[in-house]
């Protein structure tokens, strides 16, 4: 166990926007319980500045939590041209849906595409598996 284990990881608030991805969607059609689906779903895309702020490297895992739930996902650099610090992107999946607040406001529809989480390094922990989600 390294010294880093005893230091608290920096936390940051992120606004999450969800999107669709054909490769992830196709993997779901093959099997929602499959490895490919997990690999393509349990991911968050961040601005490089947020990656530095969280003191992690691309490919490390992050804990995302809010009052609705908690999941561990892999952090990737979004690769977008325009900077988007404070906003991160997740593909629509049971992982993102674990964090969607149940309050459905005026429209009766939960905010699937826009919610906030607190992110911090998962210090090497594995991503949350689909069986742990359900």
């Amino acid at each position: 166990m390294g010294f880093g284990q005893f230091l608290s990881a920096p936390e940051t608030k992120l606004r999450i926007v969800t999107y669709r991805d054909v490769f992830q969607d196709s993997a779901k059609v093959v099997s929602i319980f499959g490895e490919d689906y997990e690999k393509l779903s349990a991911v968050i895309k961040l601005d490089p500045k947020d990656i530095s702020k969280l003191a992690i490297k691309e490919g490390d895992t992050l804990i995302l939590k809010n009052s609705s739930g908690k999941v561990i996902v892999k952090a990737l650099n979004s690769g977008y041209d325009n900077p988007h610090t404070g906003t991160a992107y997740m593909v629509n999946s049971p992982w993102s849906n674990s964090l969607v607040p149940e309050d459905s406001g005026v429209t009766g529809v939960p905010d699937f595409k826009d919610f906030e989480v607190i992110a911090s390094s998962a210090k090497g922990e594995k991503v949350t598996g689909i069986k742990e989600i359900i």
Partner: protein
Amino acid sequence: MKLDNDYYVCTGCALLCDDIGVELEGGKLNKVHTACRKGFAFMKGCSNPMECTVNGERTDMDSSIKEAASILKNAERPLIFGHANSSSGAQKKAIDIARKTNGFIDDTSSFCQGPMVEAIMEGKLKTCTLDDVRHKADVIIYWGADPANSHPRHMSRYSYFPRGKERQRGWEEDRTAITIDVRKSDTAEICGQNGFYQIPVKGDAEFMDAMVSALSGKIPKTSYDLDKKKLLELASILKKAKFGVIFAGLGMVYALDDREPLYKLMDKLNSVSSFHLIPMAGHYNMRGFNQNLFEETGYINRVKFSSGEVLHGPEYSVVEVLRQKAVDAALVIGADPLSSLPRSVVRYLEKIPLIVIDPCQTLTSAKANVTIPCGLVGVETGGSAVRMDGVEIEVKQIVDTDRLSDEEIMTRISEAL
């Protein structure tokens, strides 16, 4: 090996592509031509097919149907939910079951494209067919929509790339594609830098107002930074459109608290040119369910039957009835709420008797008391469905199966009630 010269329909999404070629071998689907990656995976079938089970034990079809009927009979307030991935025949039976059991009935449109489909069915938004788009559309707007990922053949079959009767020069000269979105999606990449308008999250209503101003020759105003010159250029493109279409994606639907800004924009667009709107329904027959329920009850979703009366409102939505724990049993067909709804909302489904009908195991079926496998519509069974633009499409069976169709299962449950 037999090359089948007939064309089939892919039920992988609400585009219902009807030009799919297949090759069969030994009575099984061997090759699928023309479909996209998702359609191909869908038609080949999942790797974890559903089995008949009651309380986790494998059983036969008769016993599982009997148990499903018994759960529904004993329930006072059952929920019949899903339907977006069901044939129209099965949907009509589901409405019968909800009526017979004084149940709640709702579908996935309740938390996705419902508002847009409702506005179209009530005649509040001008619409057109995808065939009209292919033949006539010259200005195409993808708003909060990313068909490159959600409906992979949308742009190539209908909306941007094809030659059409009045668009012989195709995308190179005859069509202008525009994306309005909160991020540079793959569709935005295709539209190019000039065709991409990035707006902040939930900035859609303000952008609509700004477009109305620009179309009226006024300087557009927004609380966020906006390239006014680019917006005025957009207004000029829209004014010149001969046949415009807006594809409304979930990004737009979720961003609007009400539809007024969209109605105002559509009115303005139609006073200066001609614009249509098509909702980007995802699952292959969500729109079919909306139409079927509308014909029966006058509402597209969120209905409760009560001794012959039809009740409707936000309090009857799947999200609300689960949050309020207002139901005491559920039958889920053609959907996977444990995958698609917030975890905090669907947790209640595990506490009540739950029936799942699907060709494949799902997250919801993992928690169900009764699971009933049905044939995959479009491959193992036929039926009809309604495309995202409201056009009814006949879906043919391709291979033989000993699985019952979704409609047969729903008929048998209804008869056993």
